[in-house]
């Protein structure tokens, strides 16, 4: 930083590039540091959990002391903690996350299997919820106090307060099983049916068919937060003078909203969206449970129940890592979006 200042006196404009680089490096460095902390925390935190891993692995099977010792040796549990940590770090650098106690398979493989379905479900739901939320929030704020505002707000807040599993079960009963004369329109569980004829299109349609209910449940529950943030930040802009100016220029109401008010109101929402995108990976445990969606949220829950330490560590790192990465991205993007951040 100091050499930048030295140069300031000579010529101002070229200083910009290093400053951006410095900013990016700072943010990336911060992100990397957080990741490292997550790794350390993940390792030691779960070791505080009560329980002997070797006994966990054997669950209720009768085992001899020798068998237990062999198990401990196989998983490196007979080593002192710092040696275990060293090995863990070494493996992590090589991209290995250890072997799950429950499944006897590499953790990375297990996570790889589950991450696709979760990203598909929560990603789709988030996209829809964001689009819907932004649209509804804009309408609600623009006609503040109007009937659309009242409806959107009350329905959105009601759905937001409803327990997710309950709403999911209701939808499952109504549209999965069918009520009265209406037959069940959608499958009640899983991501695909095994009987689908081969070919890409039928399979995509089949997954889409399975996706509808869990996706609708998620959208119904989470869209309200985007809507409310969008609504309140747009409301703040409503009284601003630049809107009066825009109207005075003779712009249509539509254009005033689209070109002037909404872009300014979008900033807080973008932050929220990115925070939420980080959570996309962690999935939605309740929705995944209700609709038996084979995702990562479920895997985490199972790992915690056992507790399956390597699997827990692995999922913890992936989940926390995605939140951190998205946060760093949000901060970087914020700079692009908001000139005020750039100027400061």
């Amino acid at each position, binding site marked *: 930083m100091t050499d930048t200042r030295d140069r300031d006196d000579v010529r101002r404009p070229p200083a910009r590039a290093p400053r951006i680089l410095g900013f990016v490096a700072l943010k990336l460095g911060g992100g990397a540091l957080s990741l490292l902390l997550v790794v350390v925390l993940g390792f030691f935190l779960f070791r505080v959990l009560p*329980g002997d891993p070797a006994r966990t692995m054997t669950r209720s099977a009768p085992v001899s*002391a020798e068998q237990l010792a062999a198990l401990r040796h196989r998983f490196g549990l007979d080593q002192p903690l710092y040696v275990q940590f060293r090995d863990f770090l070494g493996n992590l650098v090589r991209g290995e996350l250890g072997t799950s106690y429950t499944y006897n398979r590499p953790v990375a493989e297990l996570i790889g299997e589950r991450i*696709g379905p979760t990203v598909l479900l929560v990603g789709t739901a988030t996209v829809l919820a964001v689009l819907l939320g932004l649209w509804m929030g804009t309408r609600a704020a623009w006609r503040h106090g109007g009937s659309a505002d009242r409806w959107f707000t009350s329905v959105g807040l009601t759905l937001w307060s409803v327990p997710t599993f309950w709403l999911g079960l209701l939808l*499952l009963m109504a549209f999965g099983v069918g009520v009265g004369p209406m037959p069940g329109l959608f499958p009640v569980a899983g991501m695909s049916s*095994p009987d689908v004829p081969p070919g890409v299109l039928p399979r995509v349609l089949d997954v889409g068919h399975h996706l509808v209910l869990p996706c609708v449940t998620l959208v119904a529950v989470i869209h309200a937060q985007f809507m409310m943030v969008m609504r309140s930040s747009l409301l703040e802009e409503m009284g601003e003078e630049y809107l009066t100016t825009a109207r005075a220029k003779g712009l249509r109401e539509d254009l005033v909203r689209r070109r002037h008010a909404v872009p300014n109101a*979008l900033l807080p929402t*973008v932050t929220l969206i990115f925070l939420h995108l980080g959570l996309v990976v962690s999935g939605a445990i309740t929705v995944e449970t209700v609709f038996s969606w084979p995702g990562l949220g479920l895997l985490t829950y199972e790992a915690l*129940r056992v507790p399956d330490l390597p699997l827990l560590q692995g999922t913890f790192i992936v989940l926390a890592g995605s939140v951190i990465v998205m946060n760093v991205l949000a901060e970087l993007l914020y700079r692009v979006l908001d000139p005020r951040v750039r100027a400061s």
Partner: protein
Amino acid sequence: MGVRSAGVRPSFPRAAATVVIAGLLLPVVLAPGALSANERGDGSGQEGEATLRVGIQQEFDSLNPFLGFSRAATEVFRLIYPTLTTYSSEDFSVVPELATDWESSRDKLTWTFHIREGVKWSDGEPVTAHDVAYTFDRMMTDSAAATANGNYVDNFAEVSAPDDGRVVIRTETPQATMRSLAVPIVPEHVWSEVDDVAGFANRRMPIVGSGPFEVTDYRPQQSLTLEANEDFWRGAPTVDRLRFVNFENSDAAVQALRKGEIDVARKLTPAQFDALKGAENIERVKGKGRRFYELVLNPGAANSAGDPIGTGHPALRDVRVRKALDRAIDRSELVDRVLGGHGTVGAGYLPPIFRKYHWSPPDDERRSFSLEAADRALDEAGYPRGPDGIRRGPSGRPLDFEFVLHGDSSTDALVGKFVKEWLSGIGVEVSLQPVSDNQVNQRTTAGDFDMVISGWSVNPDPDYVLRLQTCGARPNPGGGGLPDSFLCDERYDELYARQLAEFDRDARVELVKRAQGRFHEMATGLILFYPNALEAYRSDRFAGFERQPAERGVITAQQGYWGYYRAEPTERARTAGGGAGYRSAAFVIVGVVLLGALVVFSASAHRRRTAEHRE
């Protein structure tokens, strides 16, 4: 400032918004990747073929028979791998399977099994005695291979196959359970190439086996598909295909059954079972359970060296206190209120489904429910009530017991509430401690409890659960061992050892009953009830399932493969394949159209409003 700049240059946020939306769409673009994880479409669902679809609520921990021991996994192993013997569906008696017959030497230490001829692995290789010897040998020499079934070979000295048709097993001591070795036999020519059993997932499809079915497709957390083995030595199964479908909650499984997406749902709760009464095309099966539900009282836990361990309350070492507590528990009330009547009141250690071994205390030994009698017994035993109404032991320590429960079990929660209520009536304070399953196991092993809920599924051969109550089951100082109630009683151990070495059927039954009598007398584990196994199936698609045992038993999760093997598909199951593929496409299109209509409608509504506004 910022406001104006944004107002003047609207292109910036617009571009940013595009980036954001593009980022958001990324998951959608990635979606095909997620789909490709399920490459293997098995092209099933052809006309004329019947698929039996079973809803399960547990994931397969491993498809490797040396490692997997979740109930879901062992059920699959029974369907795809041969065992030497199996249990009949009639009454759990031992019947030939891969072994046609067997004999033991005079000293009962050497057993010879004759292997059935002409049985083939699914890849065409013959099944021989060498495969059997290889399987046992691997378990004895490779500790990883002993993970799931190691206890069966603990007492083995040597296993050999003198020729293709004979397996000779020598044991260290006589063992009455030799006729029921439930170990899945694996093909040597496949497994001898596996160096690291612990790291082998056994997921190369189809899995080479020799049972009535063959695993052809596995989608983790979704489904496992098995095709009928046309060459099965007993004859091909009546269904063409068997599929286990994963459900994460039992309500969804029940709804799927109602809708006809699956054919069998099991592990139903009493409420779900009752709600299915009268449902169209659904037949309910109320099977007697193999499980006992036990309340363990810590009688003074000790490890195998005899050193006391844990935090057990001293008053519970007094058998009079344990018996008094037993009298304060109303078992029939528990069956009615907790199980909704779907269970049997507890008596002896082994559930009544095993008619031969089941024992009930005779009238003069029965401890029937009576709070007055329990109260009196504690008075007489010298535990007077203190000023606060709580009884005190000889040392002055109040009778306040820690009751450890499985935190996610609603049954445990209810039982805990009832027991606490009853015991408070006789001056005993109980604090309920719901913890994770894992914690329950660990605290039990460490002896860190006063009261704890336990329970076991009993095998047709009772040796395994009987052993849990011996001194030998106490934990080693270095870990290991599997205690249940920490009963370590000379007379019980003697009866246990005698039954294990007794080869006369009736004499052994008698010894097993006497052991149960002794267990009851010591009152370290109170058998509260035997829950029923509740199942239901689609009667429009399947006409009948073979139950085990006959008439009162279950149709799934049997000790054998009978239920699935002999399931009878109806005409409907053969014509209407489970596939709803193209119908689903239609629904997606309908959905899209509806969504489009909604958008158009709201847009037009909006336009109308703006129009009004202008006027």
